[in-house]
């Protein structure tokens, strides 16, 4: 079955975005971009909640994105995408499927289809529901070297603790640290 991998950038104080959804603190450089390309080229499906979908659907097809980030933009635009939302009526970004039903049920269906591993980017609310339903098979948290002070916690609203098994640590030269875990129930 396809794995679902949660990937997010997080500040050392646990936020994935600062006040007013700010993400300009994201510590990115060539090494990070190589890593990001490696990630998107390993998948054939991206999962989004509504808020993250709307941000991404506005950014990646834009002239600016295609100019400043051509390789990632190409991947983001062409990869199959699923947006989980009860309120959207349509999803116009290229190759996007709108999923209106129960997130856990629908994601189990998608996981059961043939294909490569799936990624969840951003999408904190959707992630909470997926974590709680034990549908995340791998956590990749890229800890950025900053205390934001204020912001939106990446992990919030969980009802129960989740024991993790640490799989890998990668230190980037710009001070980012990638922490990779599996939930213990999924571990060997």
């Amino acid at each position, binding site marked *: 079955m396809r794995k679902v991998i949660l990937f997010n950038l997080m500040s050392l104080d646990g936020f994935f975005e600062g006040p007013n959804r700010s993400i300009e603190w994201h510590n990115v450089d060539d090494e990070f971009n190589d890593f990001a390309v490696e990630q998107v080229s390993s998948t054939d499906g991206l999962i989004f909640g509504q808020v993250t979908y709307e941000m991404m659907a506005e950014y990646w097809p834009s002239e600016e994105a295609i100019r400043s980030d051509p390789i990632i933009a190409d991947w983001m635009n062409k990869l199959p995408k699923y947006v989980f939302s009860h309120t959207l009526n349509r999803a116009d970004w290229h190759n996007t499927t709108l999923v209106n039903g129960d997130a856990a049920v629908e994601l189990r269906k998608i996981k059961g289809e043939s294909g490569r591993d799936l990624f969840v980017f951003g999408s904190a609310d959707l992630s909470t529901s997926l974590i709680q339903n034990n549908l995340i098979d791998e956590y990749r948290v890229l800890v950025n070297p900053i205390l934001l*002070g204020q912001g939106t916690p990446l992990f919030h609203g969980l009802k*129960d603790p989740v024991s*993790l098994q640490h799989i890998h640590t990668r230190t980037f030269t710009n001070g980012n640290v990638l922490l990779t875990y599996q939930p213990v129930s999924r571990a060997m």
Partner: protein
Amino acid sequence: MRKVVMFNSISLEGFFETLDHRIDWVNTDAEFNKFTTENAQSDDVDGFILGRKTYDMMSSFWPTEFALQSNPVVARRMNELPKYVFSRTLKSVDWSNSELVKGDAVQELKRIKHLPGKDLVIFGSGNLSKTFINNDLIDEFQLIVNPILLASGTPLFQDLNNSVRLKLLNVRTFGNGNVLMIYQPDRTTTSDAA
């Protein structure tokens, strides 16, 4: 001037204790205990900074027979080294080599940092840490990220006034899945990120 080093275990989402103040999820084993023992024996440190709650917890643990037997090196060190207890409500402190600090926390820590001596370690103490970070008095952060999502708990870093850019100094992964990450405030840039 003496450095102030913050040392804490946190969950992946950044909590240092559960809402009912439990820390029994902190992941320890022989390798990790060896690390804390070596830390305790370090020659770089000769004092601790504690808030009231951390003081209450530690002073009721480290002097006990149980602590002395199960963790003798760390216990001896904790009991022997000078401890500065920042509290406006405590009347006295009975733990050996403790000094009650009642004045303005920022002024007092500045004074203590200027005293001759080695580095100081601050444990736990969420509120006190916040005040010190806001006043740029923490010189190093040593955080042990434990492989767990606690779901609910008390964030180690709470509502800071400003963002703080950091410089990563070192990373160490333990066999039990803990990851130690060491940072310094990056004082070469202004912190206007958020």
